[in-house]
């Protein structure tokens, strides 16, 4: 069964652009289906207040927020328990990839605003943040890619839509560092036997390959220009 004209192991239409916010050191916009997020990186820069400074590395700070008109029912502005948790989870997903030890006492601030939500916002957020960090010229071991997967009507599905999120047996967002395939985020809502869970994780990790390609293309277009045919 196809949803939105795509197969169960395909990503929703994916759009990634780098360098979309001129004021930021690095930035990106990511759309996965109807989910659209912006990420801006400011830093490394001086960290205030002083007592948070770490003598041997940079503080990696991430704020994930949903703009009030991003959801079908208007979301109240300001942080919520959910957005606080997601901010933390995203920070933890990105940290293993960033060489924070090169900037003692500094902070790297990542701001992620969801302007349209249709499920998978934390994955889109990680994809955008990762491009924004690279765009800012921040040293990283690798990019980080993320996508969610689930199981609907006995079939494993990649990159769930908002509609699918309501009927899926489980919602499993996964983030990986693509070169090493090391996983930096796993969360799960639902209840499934272990075999299923492993298969779903595998589907998500494989799904990240296309995301990586789009991330690289976005950075290349931004810094080198449109990829020429003769290259």
């Amino acid at each position, binding site marked *: 069964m196809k949803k939105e004209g795509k197969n169960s192991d395909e990503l929703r239409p994916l759009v990634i652009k780098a360098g979309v916010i*001129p004021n930021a050191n690095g930035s990106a916009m990511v759309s996965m289906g109807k989910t659209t997020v912006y990420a801006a990186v400011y830093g490394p820069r001086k960290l205030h207040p002083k007592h948070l400074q770490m003598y041997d590395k940079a503080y990696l700070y991430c704020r994930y927020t949903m703009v009030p*008109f991003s959801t079908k029912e208007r979301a109240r502005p300001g942080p919520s328990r959910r957005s606080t948790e997601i901010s933390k989870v995203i920070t933890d997903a990105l940290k293993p990839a960033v060489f924070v030890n090169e900037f003692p006492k500094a902070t790297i601030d990542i701001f992620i605003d969801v302007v349209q939500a249709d499920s998978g916002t934390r994955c889109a957020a990680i994809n955008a943040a990762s491009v924004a960090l690279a765009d800012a010229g921040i040293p990283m071991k690798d990019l980080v890619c993320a996508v969610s997967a689930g199981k609907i009507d006995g079939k494993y599905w990649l990159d769930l839509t908002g509609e699918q999120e309501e009927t899926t047996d489980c919602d499993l967002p996964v983030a990986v560092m693509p070169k090493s395939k090391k996983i930096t985020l796993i969360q799960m809502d639902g209840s499934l036997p272990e075999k299923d869970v492993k298969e779903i994780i595998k589907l998500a990790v494989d799904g990240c390959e296309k995301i990586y390609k789009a991330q690289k293309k976005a950075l290349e277009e931004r810094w080198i220009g449109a990829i020429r045919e003769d290259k």
Partner: protein
Amino acid sequence: MDRRHKGGQIECGVMNLKSNYIFNLASKNQRTDGREFSDFRKIEIEENPIENSDGSARVRMGKTEVLVGVKLDVGEPFPDSKDEGILIVSAELSPLASAEFEEGPPREESIELARIVDRGIRESGAIDVKKLCVKEGEKVWMVNIDIHIINHDGNLIDAAALASIIALWNAKFPKYIEKEDRTEYGTKTDKELPMKYKPVAVTVYKTGKDFFLDPNIDEEEASTIRLTVISRDDDDICALQKGGTEPLTMEDVEKIFSLAVKKAAELRKLV
């Protein structure tokens, strides 16, 4: 205007030098980017970029970028206007958009921005609020306008006001099931929001003795006064807001009015 760091200057602003340069250029009738004093930067508009929103607009003025979303819902009217819809305007100066914007509860700048835009829409009668009545005294439509800044390169007021009015004129009601008193969020009917006018904000900035429009961030910082003039289709002025630390003469005000209303008519064509 002082945008100086509260607890953490991040960028090297060199504001004094820049302000002097801009001031000196202005006295020679020039701007740093070669524009005329009354020229706006390139304006780009996108209608309804956000599907989940009942109406939305993206406006770019030069590098300034603003996203506005309109959300409609049914609620109780205010006791003193039982048959009128309710307008609520909010703004967020997202830290995404500038090193100057910090996280946290809305600061005075974002509250002022929201209230100026609100004033323009409300006082001009742009929305026919009587037509937003569902059941007098019990149920009316509430119009929530949320302004979200994506990149700050000056003149947020005009960009936000323009995006707001465009979003309103592009907004459609979601389905409302009266029997169940339930709004089906995210759905769209064919019914448009009952609009009457297109109020447009033009903020005139002053540095030295010269007035200019649509400043970039450096010009905005170099200016000492601003006067926002919101006018509607019949050129009536429906809202004013002065900002900045220097005073204006009556002569200044008259010059500003004619400059602003004329420009507003031009911008209105974009709505």
